[in-house]
């Protein structure tokens, strides 16, 4: 049984649903530690006071918010905590939206909300979310801060996504892309569309494996065996100017 990271209650109206929260994702990349190349010793991160020029242990530090150059307002842990609000361990679902209408950019991190004491209210909420296809929106206090969350049915549990706020999301017009220039030609669009339909596949996450992890582990073993690692020159693909010709050639190679 996975370990839960939080206990609380989801409400909608007068129905209270006791839940346990679990992480839904984990990173599987090969992790390295920092090493000093000169002597192979580990690199340590030290927090140093520039005035005293010595490492400062955690108990001699405070948290400060910079209000002017070099001027800080010091906040105690409890004062930062106060900003998390008064919701405690309760997530009120305030309103419901079509879960598919939420653009992917808003989703941040996903948790699984499982039942506490395997209660009836949990099964009712899960089933209602599943059948309606809606996501309940609420606020969630976790580790002394508050998040916007969307609760929806996910596989056979309630999934809880923390969400980005609208002003945390960059929009296309803020990119200042160069304008003007010629629009793509009708024939280029048709060929590109054809190419897309040739590459269309049903999404199965298991089709996409992280092969880099294995490549890196392979590399580590080669290096450990004393092998010289070939530093390949950058393989920069060609950026041809003839778009139509590139599309045509892609279609020809794809259909062969």
């Amino acid at each position, binding site marked *: 049984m996975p370990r839960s990271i939080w206990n609380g209650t989801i409400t909608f109206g007068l129905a*209270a649903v*006791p839940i346990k929260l679990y*992480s839904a994702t*984990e990173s*599987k*990349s090969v992790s*390295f*530690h920092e090493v*000093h*190349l000169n002597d192979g*010793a580990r690199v340590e991160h030290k*927090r*140093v*006071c*520039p005035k005293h020029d010595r490492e400062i242990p955690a108990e001699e*530090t*405070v948290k*400060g*918010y910079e*209000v002017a150059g070099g001027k*800080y307002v010091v906040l105690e842990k409890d004062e930062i905590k*106060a*900003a998390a*609000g008064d919701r405690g361990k309760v997530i009120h679902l305030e309103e419901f939206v079509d879960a598919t209408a*939420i653009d992917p*950019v808003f989703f941040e991190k*996903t948790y*699984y909300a499982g039942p506490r004491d395997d209660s*009836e*209210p949990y099964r009712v909420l899960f089933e*209602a979310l599943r059948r309606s296809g809606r996501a309940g929106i609420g606020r969630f206090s976790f580790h002394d801060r508050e998040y916007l969350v969307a609760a929806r049915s996910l596989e*056979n549990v309630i999934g809880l996504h923390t*969400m980005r706020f*609208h*002003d*945390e*999301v*960059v929009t*296309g017009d803020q*990119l200042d892309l*160069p304008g003007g220039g010629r629009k793509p030609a009708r024939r*280029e*669009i048709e060929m*590109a569309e054809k190419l*897309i339909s040739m*590459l*269309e596949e049903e*999404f199965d996450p298991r089709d996409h494996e*992280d*092969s880099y*992890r294995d490549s*890196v582990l392979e590399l580590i*073993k080669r290096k*450990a065996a004393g092998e010289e*690692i070939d530093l*390949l020159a950058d393989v920069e*693909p060609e*950026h*041809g100017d003839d*778009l139509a010709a590139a599309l045509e050639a892609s279609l020809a190679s794809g259909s062969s």
Partner: protein
Amino acid sequence: MARALWSGSISFGLVNVPVQLVSAARDQDLHFHQLHAEDKRRLEQRRVCSEEDVEVSWEEVGHGYDLDGKQVVLTDEELGAAEPRKTRTIDIDSFTPLEAIDPIYFDHPYFLVPAGDSEGTMRAYRLLVAVMDREGQVALGRFVMRTKEYLAAVRARDGALALTTMRFADEVRSAEQIASQGKKPAKRAVDNAIAIIEELSTAWEPTDYTDCYRKRLQRVVAKKRKGGKIAAPEQEREPEPAEDLMAALERTLKTVRDGGGAREARNAGGGASGDDLEELNREELYERAQREDIPGRSKMGKKDLIAALSR
């Protein structure tokens, strides 16, 4: 423009477009710094060699890996040799409809912007945006950034190519052991719950939600700066599950059918009073007054709104 986090090419068939990756998420958090309590100086993070006690610059740092008790060290360049093509190219291998991907797979949002503004680059970039926009399809591909490979979904958003990094299938945990093992809930209870959900349904409008935490934190900082005292608000108590779930659902349904929101429905049983109105700004209070249809709300100030809402 935002800082490029990666640069290379996106490759679609034999069409290669030089691009740069920029973040599509803007950090709006209030950042705190570690200070030395004694002199309120901001602490500096230093990389120090554990043997020589000298500061180590970025260029002198290698990637160490513990292979069966033996340390193996790779340089940036050697690591780049693991998958040279993927380090420089996002190869599109397939297309799929956006709705086929569950949000659990989405990680961080980025934009791909054209690198350089040559005629050829811009035309190819615009072609990708145009066709993906028309087809409503997302392109799936993989690439390597720093020391990790990413699965990426590329699509058109706001006239640009948006890239979202995704989690690999084995990075998503199984929910099987967490799921309820109990019997199917009563149909009437579920029907009532769905009716409540439909009553409380609205269109997804991201601008409806503001980061109250950020605002409260700003207020805490401002208050502290003036020498004020900050007390943690009393925490709401966790409500107990209703003795009679069916009755609770029916009472909730009645309240929301009579035009009440989730908040009123919660309080219909005389339960906890919910969040602290004092902490909301006028705009947020006004929205609540709107929902509760409080007469004369447009002329009310913050104080009057709080008074009217607490009645």
